[in-house]
């Protein structure tokens, strides 16, 4: 998955492509449907339009019944089961395992800002390529000098 992400990583070409696609509603709908198809199959994607997968061990936090993007709640069963749907595993237990295996556990320490509900249903790839995701989470754990939170779509004041 992390390899696949390198293939999709932001670059000037993708940015131009995304901007051009968005000018054609039919084309961008088609693109969005393709993204939905792939990500629903692989991750149970809910099309929040602001994908967290690259920093959550490729376990989708939007599949959590509480949609927690910053880590597990306190009700996880002793066997790692979800408190709301005990037949399912907690998505954050999965995220922790996968991130550990990939040597990416530091990713889980980033603070995720609240989602922008205007973007629900949009293509997260088009948003990501155009830099709209740059403020979704902090660069590190922020413990040394905790950042303050800025409004959606704006850079946090330094």
């Amino acid at each position, binding site marked *: 998955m992390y390899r696949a992400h390198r293939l999709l990583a932001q670059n000037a070409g993708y940015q131009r492509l995304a901007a051009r696609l968005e000018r054609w509603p039919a084309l961008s709908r088609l693109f969005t449907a393709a993204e939905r198809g792939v990500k629903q199959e692989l991750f149970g994607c809910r099309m929040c339009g602001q994908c967290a997968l690259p920093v959550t061990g490729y376990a989708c936090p939007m599949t959590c*019944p509480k949609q927690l993007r910053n*880590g597990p709640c*306190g009700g996880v069963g*002793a066997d790692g089961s979800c*408190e709301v749907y005990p037949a399912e595993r907690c998505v954050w237990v999965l995220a922790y395992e996968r991130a550990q295996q990939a040597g990416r556990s530091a990713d889980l*320490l980033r*603070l*995720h800002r609240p989602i922008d509900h205007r973007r629900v249903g949009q293509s997260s790839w088009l948003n990501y390529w155009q830099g709209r995701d740059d403020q979704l989470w902090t660069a590190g754990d922020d413990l040394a000098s905790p950042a*303050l939170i800025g409004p959606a779509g704006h850079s946090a004041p330094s």
Partner: protein
Amino acid sequence: MTSGFQSSLESGTFTVTAEIAPPRGADPDAIGRKVAPLRGWVAAVNVTDNQSAVVRMSSLAASRLALAAGVEPIMQVTCRDRNRIALQSDLLGACGLGIPNILMMTGDHPRFGDHADAMPVFDLDSIQLLWVARTMRDEHRLLSGRNLAWPPSWFLGAVENPFAPPTEFRAARLGKKIAAGAQFVQTQYVFDVTAFERWMTQVRDLGLDGRCHVLAGVGPIMSARALGHLQHEVPGVHIPREVARRLLAVPASRVADEGIKVCAETISQLRHITGVAGVHIMAAGNEQLIPDILRLAGLDRGACRAG
């Protein structure tokens, strides 16, 4: 508006808090009756926010009633029922009403409550809410970026469950809450002191005990039925086999006494763990027993008083 609870923690006093649930009804005196036996014994009382997703008087109103009854409140706020607009508005209201301490948590899912058919909101999570509250207080700014004419002052807290998987991530998750804004943390019930010590070691290794006051959650198990309830119906509570066996070994009439004894012994053990700043007692409707528990644990009235 100053927090006596905060002063108590900052003075290094072993600090005790207790939890009370607002009434299911509009009785304005219910809170006063509940907190009366605790006056002088605890630094502050947590006022729960529709705990277990069951409707009760709002934590904002009940916190104000606790204040009027002479006990400092810690208003609990969950993300289950309100979006970011209502949450920020209620936080400002709390400050306006003189409520100095706020505890933020994600909240139980409505599925467990008396309105299982309700819409779960979870617009923010507990970490985002802490982050927003700290920004409102320190930067005088709402999440929208708009300025606050009169900035609030709060002592901000969080919860953590050291016993829930992934247990290796739980100390780091407290770190996230501290980065977001938590100044104190209260934990889930500690019945397994050994497992709690493992978590505390990680907390200390990450240097978090110097950045956040840790209050360990405790509570007496008053009957075999209560034991079963905690074991099977409350998500995230871990009761070791020895504790369960000890409670079930005595005749039914003496389970309550044994439960109180176990609770007092746990407090005594927790007091000796480096980095534990106090205890948070969740007595689930038996608040009047808290002075007895504290006395048994060797904590006198006033020893744990605020200020």
